[in-house]
C-alpha cells in the first residue's frame, strides 16, 4: 500500500488547550478517507494545518514522500492540496467566475489582467467538466444561496486539479440533489487517483461513500478502520470513548402540568416557519436537527436578540421580548453558543463575569456592594463546583469546562425559570459534561425548565423528556417516550416525518 499523505506526530496547542496530541494520520490515493469525531476532537485543526492556514507545533507532513513546509495557504495550494472549508473561502463582492479563478496565475492574459468575458467562458467550461448547472458565472457571490456558494467553493478548488482534496463538512450546506452530485463526483475523483479526505457528521453519508474511516477523540487518533470491516455502532463508541450509559444520570421526569412557556406560530423569513410548542414546568425539552435549520434563530428570538413574527406566552401571559434584559426579567436565560465571543470577558475575573446580569441587584446607595457580590458568587461557584484559584482569578486561566460552568453560573444568578442551553457541551471535557447533565436534572427537579439544543444524539435521547426536531425552520417531529430514539431523530433531521406520539396531556 503506497502511502501518499503521511502526517506523523502532529501536535498543536492553543494556549492551554491541546487541540492535537501526537497525531499520526495517513491517506492513500484512490481512497475516500473519512474523518469522524465529536466537535472539538481535533479534525478541523488537522485540516487547517494541512491547508497551511495555521502552523503545527511539532510533527511532520509528507506528500508523495516529499517533506512539506507549509507556512501559508498558498504553499499548500501550490503543492496540490485543495481544501474546501466549512465556512467557505469565497470573496462576497466578486463574481462567481472571479472567485473560481481568484489568484490563478494562468488565468491572466499577457497584460496581467483578466477580462470578464474570458473568465465567463472558462467558468462555463469548468461547469461542464464537473457537471454543474443552474449557476450564472457573472452572478456576484454574495447573492447566491448557501448551497450554490458551496458548489462554487468546490469548483474553485477542483479547477486547480489538486492531488489531495480535503473537504470539511461539504454536504452540510448542500441541497439534496447537489449532495448526490458531490458524492458521485468524489467517487469519480477517487477513481482518477486523487487522495480524498472528508469530515462529516452524517453517518449515512460516511457509510455510503468512505473506503476508510479514522476517528478522532480529544485531539488523538483513536482508530482507523476499513469501512467494510466496521459499523456505525463501533465508530460511535470510538468517538464517545466510554460506555454511553455511565455518562448520563438516570432518566427521571419532573414534568408538571403547568405550561411555563408557549410559542405560537413563530415565523421569520425562511428561517423559522410556524414554530409552535409548549414548555412545561420541570421539563427538559430537547431541540434537534442538523445545524442551521432554525434552532439558533429560535433561541436568539426567545432571548430577545432575533426578531420573529408570532406570539410568546409566559405563564399564560402574552409577552413581548425585545432585548436580553427583558428576557431575563421574564425569567429566561441563555447560555450562548460561543463561550469566547458571546459568553465571557476573558480579561475579567470570575466574580465580575458571573455578576454581570445581576449588577443592579447588588446596589446599595448607588454603589456595588462587594460583600453581597462575593457572597452570591461564592455560593454559585460552590454549587457548580467551579475549579479555580479564587473568584478573583481571570477567566482566561480556567479550563474550557470550567469556563462553561462560569457561564452557567452567570445565567443561574438571575434565578431563571427557563434556561436555554445552546450546544453547551461543545469543547467541554467528559467530566464536566457529566456534571452538566447532573445539573440539568437537578434544575428540572427544582421546577425549572430547560430547552436544550445539541447535535449529539445521545445527549438528546438521555437527558431530554421530549425532543422537537427542526428541519428547514419547521418542527418536523416531536419525539417522546418510546419514540425518543436516535434513529428517529436522525430520520426526522433528514426530513422524514416520524409519527408524533405526544404522550403528554
Amino acid at each position, binding site marked *: 500500500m503506497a502511502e501518499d499523505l503521511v502526517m506523523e506526530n502532529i501536535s498543536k496547542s492553543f494556549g492551554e488547550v491541546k487541540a492535537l496530541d501526537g497525531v499520526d494520520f495517513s491517506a492513500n490515493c484512490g481512497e475516500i478517507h473519512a474523518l469522524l469525531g465529536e466537535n472539538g476532537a481535533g479534525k478541523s485543526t488537522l485540516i487547517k494545518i494541512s*491547508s497551511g*492556514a495555521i502552523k503545527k507545533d511539532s510533527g511532520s507532513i509528507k506528500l508523495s514522500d516529499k517533506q512539506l513546509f507549509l507556512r*501559508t*495557504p*498558498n504553499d499548500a*495550494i501550490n503543492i496540490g492540496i485543495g*481544501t474546501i*472549508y466549512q*465556512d*467557505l*473561502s*469565497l*470573496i*462576497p*463582492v*466578486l*463574481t462567481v467566475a*472571479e472567485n473560481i479563478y*481568484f*489568484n490563478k496565475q494562468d488565468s*491572466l492574459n499577457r497584460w*496581467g*489582467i*483578466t*477580462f*470578464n468575458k474570458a473568465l465567463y467562458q472558462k467558468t462555463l467550461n469548468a461547469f461542464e467538466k464537473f457537471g454543474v448547472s443552474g449557476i450564472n458565472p*457573472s452572478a*456576484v457571490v454574495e447573492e447566491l444561496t448557501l448551497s450554490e456558494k458551496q458548489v462554487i467553493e468546490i469548483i474553485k478548488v477542483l479547477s486547480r486539479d489538486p492531488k489531495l482534496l480535503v473537504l470539511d463538512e461539504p454536504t452540510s450546506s448542500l441541497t439534496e440533489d447537489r449532495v448526490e452530485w458531490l458524492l458521485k463526483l468524489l467517487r469519480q475523483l477517487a477513481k482518477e487517483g486523487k487522495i480524498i479526505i472528508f469530515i462529516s457528521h452524517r453517518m449515512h453519508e460516511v457509510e455510503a461513500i468512505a473506503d476508510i474511516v479514522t476517528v478522532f477523540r480529544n485531539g488523538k487518533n483513536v482508530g482507523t478502520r476499513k469501512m467494510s470491516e466496521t459499523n456505525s455502532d463501533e465508530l460511535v463508541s470510538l468517538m464517545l470513548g466510554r460506555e454511553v450509559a455511565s455518562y448520563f444520570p438516570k432518566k427521571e421526569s419532573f414534568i408538571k402540568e403547568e405550561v411555563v412557556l408557549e410559542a405560537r406560530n413563530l415565523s*421569520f*423569513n425562511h*428561517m423559522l416557519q410556524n414554530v409552535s410548542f409548549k414548555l412545561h414546568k420541570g421539563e427538559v425539552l430537547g431541540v434537534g436537527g442538523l445545524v442551521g435549520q432554525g434552532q439558533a*434563530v429560535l433561541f*436568539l*428570538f426567545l432571548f430577545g*436578540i*432575533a*426578531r*420573529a413574527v408570532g406570539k410568546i406566552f409566559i405563564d399564560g401571559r402574552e409577552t413581548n421580548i425585545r432585548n436580553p434584559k427583558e428576557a431575563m426579567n421574564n425569567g429566561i436565560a441563555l447560555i450562548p453558543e460561543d463561550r469566547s465571543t458571546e459568553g465571557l470577558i476573558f480579561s475579567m475575573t470570575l466574580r465580575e463575569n458571573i455578576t454581570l446580569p445581576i449588577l443592579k441587584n447588588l446596589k446599595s446607595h448607588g454603589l456595588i456592594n462587594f460583600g453581597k457580590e462575593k457572597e452570591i458568587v461564592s455560593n454559585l461557584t460552590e454549587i457548580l463546583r467551579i475549579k479555580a484559584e479564587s473568584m478573583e482569578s481571570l477567566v482566561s486561566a480556567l479550563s474550557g469546562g470550567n469556563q462553561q460552568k462560569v457561564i452557567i453560573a452567570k445565567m443561574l444568578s438571575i434565578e431563571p425559570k427557563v434556561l436555554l442551553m445552546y450546544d453547551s457541551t461543545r469543547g467541554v471535557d467528559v467530566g464536566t459534561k457529566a456534571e452538566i447533565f447532573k445539573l440539568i436534572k437537578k434544575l428540572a427537579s427544582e421546577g425549572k425548565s430547560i430547552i436544550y439544543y445539541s447535535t449529539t444524539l445521545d445527549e438528546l435521547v438521555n437527558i431530554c423528556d421530549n425532543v422537537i426536531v427542526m428541519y428547514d425552520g419547521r418542527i418536523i417531529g416531536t419525539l417522546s417516550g418510546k419514540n425518543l430514539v436516535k434513529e428517529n431523530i436522525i430520520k426526522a433531521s433528514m426530513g422524514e416525518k416520524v409519527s408524533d406520539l405526544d404522550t403528554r396531556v
Partner: protein
Amino acid sequence: MKLKWANLIPYIIIAFIMVIIGLLQPTIVRLDWVGIKTDSILPLALAAVGQTLVMLVGGIDLSMGGVISLTNSLAAIKMTDNPINIILFTIGMLLLGLLLGAINGLIIVKLKLQPFIVTLITWFIYGGLALWVLPTDRANVPQKFIDVLLARIAGIPVSLLIILGIVGWWLYLQRAPFGKNILAIGSNERSAYLSGVNVGRVKILVYSMSGLFAACAGVYRTAQVASGSPTAGNNFILASVTAAVIGGASLAGGKGSIAGSIIGAFILKLLGDLLVFSGISSYWVSLFQGLLLITIIAVVSITELVRRRREVGA
C-alpha cells in the same frame, strides 16, 4: 464587478449639479472653466484616491493630513529654480510620502493595531514635522514648477490628464490580481487569506500608496496656491473620506471606486462653489462638509441596519 445602479449615484449627482450650475451661471461653463476646476480639485482628488485605497481594505488614513502638510511645506521652501533640482526634489517628496505611508502599514500589520489610532498618531507626528519645518505660512516656489503643473497641453490641463491617467489605472487595477486582492481583503479578510492572498503585504502596499498620493497632493498644492502651510493637510482628511464615501466607498471595506471618489471630490468642490455663489461665506464650508459626511454615513448605516434586520432578524 457588476455594474449596479448604486454605483452610478455619484455620476447622477454630478450631472445634476452641472445642470444647476449651467442654469445659474450660463456664461461660466467653458473649457477653461473645466481647467480651473481640475487644477483646484486635483489635490483633493489625489487625497481621495489614496483614502479610497485604504478604505477598500477596511482601514482609514488620518495621517495624510500630516503628509500633505509636510510635503507642501518642504516643497514651498526648499525648491530652487534649477530644473534638475525641481525634478529630483519632487521625486524625493513622492518617495517620502511612500515611506511615511509604509510606516503606517508596517505598524498596522505587524502590531495588529487599529488603523485609526496608528494614523492618528502619525498624523500628529508628520504634522509636527511640518510645523517644525515651516512654522508659519510662507512661499518660495519656483515659477517654472508652477508653470509645468498648471500648464495646458494642446488646450487640455495637465491636471485633467493626470485625473484621466488615474482613472485609466483604476480600470486596469480592477481587473488585475492586485486590485482583486484589495477588494478581497476588504470584503472578507479570512477568505482572502485562505485563498492565498498575502494580506499583510497587500495592506502595507496600500498604505504606502496612500502616502504616495498624499505626497502628490501636497506637492501639487504647492504649485496650485504657490505657497506652503504647515496645517494645509488637515482639511483634506475629512474631505477625502467624504469624497470617497460619495463615490461609493464603504467604511467597512470591500466596496468603493477610485473613479467614484474623484467624482466625489468634484461634487464636494462644486457644492462648495454653489454655496459661496448663493452668498454663504466660505467660513461655513467646514460645517457643511462635516454635516454632509455625517448625513451620508448615517443614511448608509441606517439602510444597512434595516436591511440586516429584515434578512437576519438581529
